[in-house]
């Protein structure tokens, strides 16, 4: 492999896959989460649901390395501000993290100097109302579910809620997270300290 190919494959440090085609595809996928998601495969359904529940638990327990291992190399962690997502090419999000920026986000939390997370938020989230359906192949699953998240920090308990949209991808027989979209019901409102992982 030449230098550029090496860089392209190292998504932890270089970002080539968030290109025009990626954005176009993402906007199309938004419409899929709006459709009736149905699946006639209890095994896949169970595996995928379990993955989402596990991801939530790992975040609530600050198990960030394991959390990152659930994501594909070309993943997206997205918290739009505009309800419904808007167009991320011309609008800002709370987070539009490719693999590199997601690792930056986790790295910052672990520097020991992220004062907005010292002390760290205690969180616990509940997911439900799961709906799942296959994408263009049986290696892609689109899932959505509702969430409520309680957060405690410096004596104050806060409540966040909305729905998660997931695009899951089967990589070497393992289901992984390719896209996580966090749709907060108050995404466009003022937030005091949303620096914990949603």
């Amino acid at each position, binding site marked *: 492999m030449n230098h550029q190919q090496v*860089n392209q494959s190292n998504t932890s*440090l*270089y*970002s*080539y*896959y*968030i*290109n*025009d085609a*990626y*954005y176009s595809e993402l906007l199309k996928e938004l419409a899929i989460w709006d459709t009736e998601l149905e699946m006639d495969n209890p095994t896949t359904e169970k595996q995928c649901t379990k993955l989402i529940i596990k991801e939530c638990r790992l975040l609530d327990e600050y198990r960030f390395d394991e959390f990152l291992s659930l994501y594909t190399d070309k993943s997206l962690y997205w918290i739009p*501000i*505009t309800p419904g997502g*808007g167009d*991320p*090419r*011309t*609008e*800002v*999000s*709370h*987070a*539009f*993290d*490719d693999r*590199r*920026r997601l*690792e*930056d*986000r986790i*790295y*910052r*939390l672990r*520097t*020991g*100097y*992220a*004062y*907005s997370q010292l002390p760290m938020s205690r969180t616990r989230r509940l997911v439900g109302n799961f709906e799942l359906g296959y994408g263009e192949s049986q290696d892609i699953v689109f899932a959505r579910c509702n969430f409520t998240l309680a957060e405690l920090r410096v004596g104050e308990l806060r409540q966040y809620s909305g729905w998660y949209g997931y695009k899951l991808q089967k990589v070497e027989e393992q289901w992984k997270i390719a896209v996580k979209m966090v749709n907060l019901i108050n995404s*466009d*409102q*003022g*937030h*005091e*300290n*949303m*620096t914990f992982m949603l």
Partner: protein
Amino acid sequence: MYNWEHLVQEDRVHRAVYTDPQLFEEEMVQIYGRSTWVYLAHESEIPKVNDYKTGYLGKRPIIITRDQKGKVRALFNRCTHRGSTLCRMEKGNSKQFACPYHGWNFKNDGSFIGAPWPKAYGDQLHSPEFNLMQVRVETYKGLIFGTLNENGPSLDEYLGNAKELIDQWMYHNGGPERLRVNSNAHRKLMSCNWKFVYDNAADGYHVTFSHRSLLGINERYKEEGIEDKDMIYFTQKPDDGPMYVQYLGNGHIFLDQRPAHRGGDGSMWNQQRPQPGREVFEEQMIDKYGEKAYRYLDQAVGSQMNLTIFPNLLFVGNQIQVIEPIAVDKTQITWYATTIDGYPDEINNLRMRTQEDFPAFGEPDDVTNWSEGQRGLSIPEAEWVFFNRGLTLTETHHEDANGVITAPVTDELPMRGYFNEWKRIMSQASTATNYQSIK
């Protein structure tokens, strides 16, 4: 009555200016309304005739409209009948506003149209007092400001020394004709007085400490042989470095990071922490534009200017940040994202990813430190907040012919400067305000 000389001294201010609720209410009348020009909106947010957006002048709810003749106005969002707000939407397009409570009607220029079943009023309604109250409005290159001071200086005079810097910021962002403030915004709530935001706006001292986690992300890259990025230059002897702060007069302050970016096109782009899609769009730009690509790419990253117009407008990076005081210990800041009309898609796309970086990885640590500052200031026995850094180093301060004072980037000169203006305004008696009638 307050003893202003006691509250604001040469080297320190009293905690009461951050904690006294009555003083806050006074500020909301004097500072935010009667004595300054307050930033309200950008013209590109209401581009078409009859467009409007709602907002606040201090704590007064207002509607900023482009009326049927295309004139930009700001109206009190308050029915002249019984006080109800007329418009509860954030944005929209409407020729008139009808009060949801009793159906009184107003044109979007503020003039009273009528009330249902008017017979019961006789001719009582034929009075200009039933028109919506107007805020005096002026604009500078698309920036809309309002004041309740009918006889005060023009906006042009008020902006004074800041105008040239606004122009430079605009130039970085494509110029006034191309700058657009119509995507969306980050909104942050914080449990602190609004002046914590202002104090921080030209503070080159805090970066190394408050933003240690952001700068710490560099370690992840250094292990892979990738050099330090972003504001790392603040950690390298900033007292003697090329960056500087300025007090511009009228409460306006400035911190310039541009001198830390030496070299030609690409010097700002190359110093920027990486954004999603950085490499692929950089290559795409070079393919399309050759060497000129870097002139564009520099505009995809922040302006490296921190320019602050008293009392509520901050130009930070490429965002327009607006301070919205809510209570003595509650503030919202809104970071309006900006795009450049007619620029390559790659540039606007990268601008979005750049504008997500600091609000996520930098600002939250500041906000936490300000809120914890407010908590610290709750102690009555510990009275003083100090802004004495650099005070006695007068040989490092330089004043030019226009009255602009320049100091090293870590000097607390900007805070001393704006607090003097704050004291001047707060200590003068309330000036009578005459409301403009449009009939």
